[in-house]
């Protein structure tokens, strides 16, 4: 039962949190590297 709860409840919620984080990082990458706007992302390796 615990395994079922982890896989079917905890993992999906964790994944949704990861998706939100990646969305933020993608916006930053597209702005800085692909479109060439905004400050450089050099030295920001600590995030995620």
């Amino acid at each position, binding site marked *: 039962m615990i395994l079922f709860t982890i896989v079917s409840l905890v993992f999906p919620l964790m994944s949704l949190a990861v998706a939100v984080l990646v969305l933020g990082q993608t916006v930053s990458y597209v702005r800085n590297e*692909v479109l060439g706007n905004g400050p450089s*992302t050099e030295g920001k390796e600590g995030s995620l």
Partner: protein
Amino acid sequence: MSLSTLDYAIIIVYFAGLALYGVLVRRIRGFGDYSVARRRVPTSMIAASLCATYIGPGYSLGLAGRAFTSAYLFPLLFLGFSLQTVLVGLFVAPRLTRYQEAHSVGDVMGKLYGREAQVLTGVISAGLCAGFAAVMARAGGQVLAGVLGLPLWAGVCLVTLVGITYTYTGGLKSVIATEALQFVVKVTAVSAMVLAARSLVASGNQLGDAALETTWKALSTMKPLTLLGLVLSFFLGETLIPPYANRALAARTESSSRRGFVLAGLFSIVWFAMIGAIGIIGSRLLPASTPEDRAFVAVAAKALPSGLFGLLVAAIAAIVMSSQESVLNAGAVAVTRDMIGTLRNLSDHGSLVLSRLLTLTLGLVSVFMALRAPSIIDGLLICYSLWAPSVLLPLVWGVMGLPTRRSTGLAAIVGGTVGSSLALLGHVAGGDTPTALVIGLASAALAAGLAAVVTRQRRSA
């Protein structure tokens, strides 16, 4: 499995948004953008794009189908991939990032074992990428055909056409930016699907007991050599295949390469568990006669309300497209750099134009192959049994800094390819695909060993 108006609306909004996003990010300044994204990709994007690439039809629709028929067996075997990705991240990918002049796996092999090894790696890489693209096109085509009522060939052509358009215009830089967004869509839709599907099963305990019984049953019918082949296939089969290796080459630093691979490997554990759960829940909800590759969509149709099912269909399109984009890009770069680039000097602009044309060609080849491809997992296993025995052994050996000789590298590539091809064609071990990988690896090791002995004897004589 029919779509409501809301589902159609969500799919249209998704594709319109993707097209708009595509226009925004499709800026290419040269071959360096197309092949390795100017080597400026940070950790988060390396991890997200690796996840988006490995979460293809095999690691979603295919795995759910195998969990539907054999419960925990395949989700557990897939953990070999997770372990491999973490190990590659810790020990191999950062070393690969040091090859600052390389644009492809073949470039690295060329530096380690000479031009012939580069050309052979290019041929194998291109064939492998076309094979992967075919498996993905077939899987995506099947889903589209089922949902939209199209014939299979039309679904395959539609999926591949979108993949070609994205890769043709974008290259790796835009592929990575698009993949990260598609990763978000896939993860959101599949997480929602797992949460919805869990509410349809009364008891987790009963489900777990039945799944355990099914797992033992599936395991007991498997020959030991086939099981060993499957373990090795999922551990080695996708190790440093061209699209993954290209991300290591595109990483900004060794540290971002290491962390990107490790994070992607860890996330795959969570992903395989969720997809396995979908298949196992499906074994309770669906008739046993459901074809395994359709189990994923069938569970979604039962579990998801109108609107969310549309998002799931969009996510399946994302699953196919993001993986297909990566393999088409990697295949085109392999032919440009490792086959044509070794025969004549190409300018940056010439390489870019050629890569785009090759993307188109590989896409068309993959359509023809897709119409003859077997089930998703079987198709992937064939690709695995060709890659790991041929290129992987000499690549990892050389990248780890062990002594390399031109003759041993070539012998390993040729020996592994011949061994696994003979096994796949049924001349050895009755054509059992997982066994072909074991035979191919043994042939590669034997051929390299023999070449080393002969070279040493010649030198001492």
